[in-house]
C-alpha cells in the first residue's frame, strides 16, 4: 500500500457529558506516510481523545477519520490490523511476564504460536529486556514497562503506530532510549503519530506538528516553521530587586515583539532576533549600572509556545493533572 497519507482526519468532533464538553472541536489533519507526526498540547487539549478515536477505541461524535485508508468507524477491524498503540499508562498485564505479555498480544493479533514466540524473543532482545523476559511485569521499572508496552504495540509489525505521550514521567535516560527506538522505527518505514507535551520531544522526533488547545488546532507546520514563528530563544535575567526587574523590563521591551514577562526578580524576554538581541539587552542593562545576578538562555518551552499562540500559559489550563504538571516542571 502506498498511500500518500497514512492518516486522514476530517472535521472530527468528539463531545463528552452529553455534548457539554468538546474534547475535539472540528479537527482536521493529514499524516504523511513514513513520517513522525507530532500532536503537541497540554493536558486536556484533546491529544489522547484523538489517539483513542484513531485507534478505534472511541467513536467520534461527527467527522471522518481514515487510517491506512480505512474508516475508523465502519472498517475498524481493518484499521486494527494495521495499527499499534502504546502510551503513558503502559497497559501491560502485570501478572504476566514480559515474554508472556508479548506472546499474548501476538496471539491476539492472530500470529501463529511459533511466530508469536519468535517475534516476542526478538523484541525483548531489541528493547534490552532479555534479562527481564521471564519476570512478572509488575516488577518492572517505569522505563521497562514503557519499553514492554511499545514492544507489545510492535509485535504484529504494524505500519502505523500511535504513541500517546510515550515519555511522560520517564527519567532522562529512559527518555533518550525510547527516542532512539522511535527513530529506528521510522527509518524502517513506520508512520508514527506521537502526542507529547514536550516541545523538545516534538522537535527531535516529528517532521510535522499540530498544536492542539482545548480541542482545536491552533498552529501547524514543520518544527522549524513553528519555532521561527514562536521566537527561538528565551533570555532569562535575575535581578537584585523587584524595582530593578521592572526597570530592566522597560529597557529591553522593544527588543521583542512578545511582551516581557516579569515574575518577582526574574524577567523573561523572547530574543526573536537571535544572539545579537540578547547582547544588546545586556549592554543596555549594564549601561544603566544595574547588576545582573543571574543570566541564562533557554529554548522555548511549551509554555512559551502557548503564551505566544494563545496568550495563556499551559499551567493556566483548566485542570492539568498535578503529577504530570510536576513531571513537566522537573523536566524543563
Amino acid at each position, binding site marked *: 500500500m502506498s498511500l500518500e497519507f497514512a492518516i486522514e482526519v476530517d472535521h472530527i468532533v468528539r463531545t463528552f457529558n452529553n455534548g457539554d464538553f468538546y474534547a475535539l472541536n472540528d479537527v482536521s489533519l493529514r499524516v504523511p506516510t513514513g513520517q513522525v507526526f507530532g500532536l503537541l498540547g497540554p493536558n486536556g487539549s484533546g491529544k489522547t481523545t484523538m489517539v*483513542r478515536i484513531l*485507534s*478505534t*477505541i472511541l467513536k467520534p461524535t461527527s467527522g471522518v477519520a481514515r487510517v491506512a*485508508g480505512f474508516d475508523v468507524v465502519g472498517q475498524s*477491524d*481493518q484499521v*486494527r*490490523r494495521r*495499527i499499534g*498503540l502504546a502510551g503513558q*499508562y503502559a*497497559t501491560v*498485564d*502485570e*501478572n*504476566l511476564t514480559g515474554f*508472556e505479555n508479548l506472546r*499474548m*498480544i501476538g*496471539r*491476539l*493479533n*492472530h500470529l501463529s504460536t511459533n511466530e508469536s514466540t519468535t517475534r516476542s524473543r526478538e523484541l525483548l532482545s531489541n528493547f534490552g529486556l532479555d534479562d527481564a523476559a521471564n519476570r*512478572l511485569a509488575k516488577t518492572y521499572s517505569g522505563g521497562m514497562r514503557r519499553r514492554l508496552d511499545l514492544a507489545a504495540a510492535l509485535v504484529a509489525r504494524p505500519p502505523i503506530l500511535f504513541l500517546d505521550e510515550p515519555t511522560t514521567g520517564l527519567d532522562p535516560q529512559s527518555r533518550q532510549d525510547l527516542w532512539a527506538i522511535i527513530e529506528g522505527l521510522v527509518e524502517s518505514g513506520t508512520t508514527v503519530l506521537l502526542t507529547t507535551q514536550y516541545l523538545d520531544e516534538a522537535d527531535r522526533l516529528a517532521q510535522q506538528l499540530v498544536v492542539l488547545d482545548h480541542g482545536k488546532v491552533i498552529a501547524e507546520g514543520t518544527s522549524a516553521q513553528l519555532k521561527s514563528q514562536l521566537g527561538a530563544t528565551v533570555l532569562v535575567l535575575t535581578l537584585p530587586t523587584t524595582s530593578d526587574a521592572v526597570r530592566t523590563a522597560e529597557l529591553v521591551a522593544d527588543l521583542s515583539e512578545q511582551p516581557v514577562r516579569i515574575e518577582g526578580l526574574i524577567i523573561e524576554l523572547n530574543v526573536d532576533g537571535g544572539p545579537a538581541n540578547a547582547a544588546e539587552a545586556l549592554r543596555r542593562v549594564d549601561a544603566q549600572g544595574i547588576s545582573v545576578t543571574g543570566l541564562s538562555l533557554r529554548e522555548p518551552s511549551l509554555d512559551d509556545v502557548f503564551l505566544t499562540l494563545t496568550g495563556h500559559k499551559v499551567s493556566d489550563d483548566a485542570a492539568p493533572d498535578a503529577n504530570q504538571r510536576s513531571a513537566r516542571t522537573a523536566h524543563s
Partner: protein
Amino acid sequence: MSVDTTSAWSPRWAINDTVTIARRNLLAIIRIPTALVFAIIQPIMFVVLFRYVFGGAIKVATSGYVNYLIPGILVQTTIFGAVGTAIGLAEDLQRGLIERFRALPMARMAVLGGRTLADVVRNVLVIIVITIVGFAVGFRPTGSVVSYVGAALLMLLFAYCLSWGFAFIGLVAPNSEAAQAITFPLIFPITFASSIFVPIDSMPSWLRGFATYQPVSQVTNAVRGLMNGVPHGASTWISLAWSLGAIVMLAPLAVRRYRQVA
C-alpha cells in the same frame, strides 16, 4: 482496494482469542496469591470448619453430616468463584487493559468469553481438590461415578451461567474493590440461606420459603442427591431451568454493558 477476507469474526479466531484470554486469566490466578487462596484454600477451610467445628451440632436426616456437607461446599465454592469474574473484569477495565484489547484485531467477545471460560477451568480444579480433601475427611459418596460427574457438570453449568451476572457487576463497578463490595452482599444470602450447610427445616419459617425455592438450594439438592445416590425430586430439572434462565437474562446484560464501556 483489496478486501481482506480473514475476518476477526471467523469462528477459528474467535476460539483462538477466547482461549488466549482464558489462558491469561488462569495464569493470573496462579500469580496472584490472594486469588489462589480464594480459589483453593478458603473452601478447604470451610470443609474443616464445618466438618470438625460446627458439624457436630448439625443434625441431618441422611447417614452422616460429611456426606451432606461436601456436595454443599462444592456448590458454594463454584458460586464463590464467580466473584473472581467480577473482580478480574473490574481490574482489567480499571487498568486500561480492556481498552488495549479493543485496539487489537481480536474477536470482541473474547474478553468476556475468555474470562468466563477461565472460571470454568478453575472450578474444575477446585472440584477435584475439594473432592480429594473431602475423601480425606471421611466423605464417602454412595452414588455412581457417572452421577458424580453429572453432579459436577451441573454445578459447573450453574456457576457458568451465574458468572455472566458477575461479569456485568465487574463492568459496572468503578473499581475492583467496589466489585468485591457489591458481590458479597449478593452471594452471602443465596449461599448461606440455602441447603448448602444445614437442612432448611432447621431454619425459622419466615426464611424457609426463600431458602427452599431459591436456585442455590435446588442446585445443592440435585448435586447432593446425585453424589449420594438418593432421590432428589425434580431439583435437577429445576436447576437446569434456573441455569438457562440465568444465562438468557444475564449474558445479554453483560454483553451490552461491555459494548458500552469498551
